[in-house]
């Protein structure tokens, strides 16, 4: 791993269009500012890994596993008057 020392308000560049700036340092917490092209997703690592795990788990679901969902949707629909505003459907 490349290790660089930086002070507050200093930056590093990754490639020619990603800039990571040390915005603030307080105790054991560092605040980073990240400038990257919008097509490059930036995530906290633990959040990204949790989404990965969750997606892989969700990808194991089969149509038969979702039976309970229909009854639940019917019940929610019957419980007016707070009608949820659903997005357009295909």
């Amino acid at each position, binding site marked *: 791993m490349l290790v660089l020392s930086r002070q507050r308000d200093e930056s590093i560049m990754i490639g020619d269009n990603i800039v990571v700036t040390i915005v603030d340092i307080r105790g054991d917490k560092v605040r980073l500012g990240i400038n990257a092209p*919008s097509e490059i997703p930036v995530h906290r690592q633990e959040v990204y890994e949790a989404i990965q795990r*969750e997606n*892989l788990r969700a*990808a194991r*679901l089969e149509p038969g596993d979702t039976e309970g*969902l229909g009854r639940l949707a019917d019940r929610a629909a019957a419980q007016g008057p707070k009608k949820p505003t659903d997005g*357009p459907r295909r």
Partner: protein
Amino acid sequence: MRINTSRFGRIDIDAADIISFPSGLPGLEGCREWALLADATNDALGWLQSTTQGDIALAVVSPRRFVPDYQVRIPRSELTPLAIADLRQAQVVVIVGSNGRTLTLNLKAPIVINLEARTGRQVVASGELPMQYELPCATPGLKKSA
């Protein structure tokens, strides 16, 4: 185009109905193109089916239908790649999963789809939201293998 799927058999998908996810989905980075299918029996449920990997599909629902007070706030930077200024121009769905006991909804990382441009992205919503919001319905024996 015709694809063979493990869940729905052989299906025909109109090229115009393909939704592209330029950044992929975390964990499923290889799948960039998906089709949104309606479930055969459950009108509350849709399936995002990978058009390149027939065995990969994600169950999705409109979150408000199950969690009426779900307020999703998404940083503008997450929406920029979709070329939408605000969420009213988009369809927001959440992925249905299972924690082994109940079905769950990933409220923290919804999928935002620009229906006109047919592009989508899984985003990280602001605030404290669960990735496994438990629905009050049990999962019948979930298969262990993919």
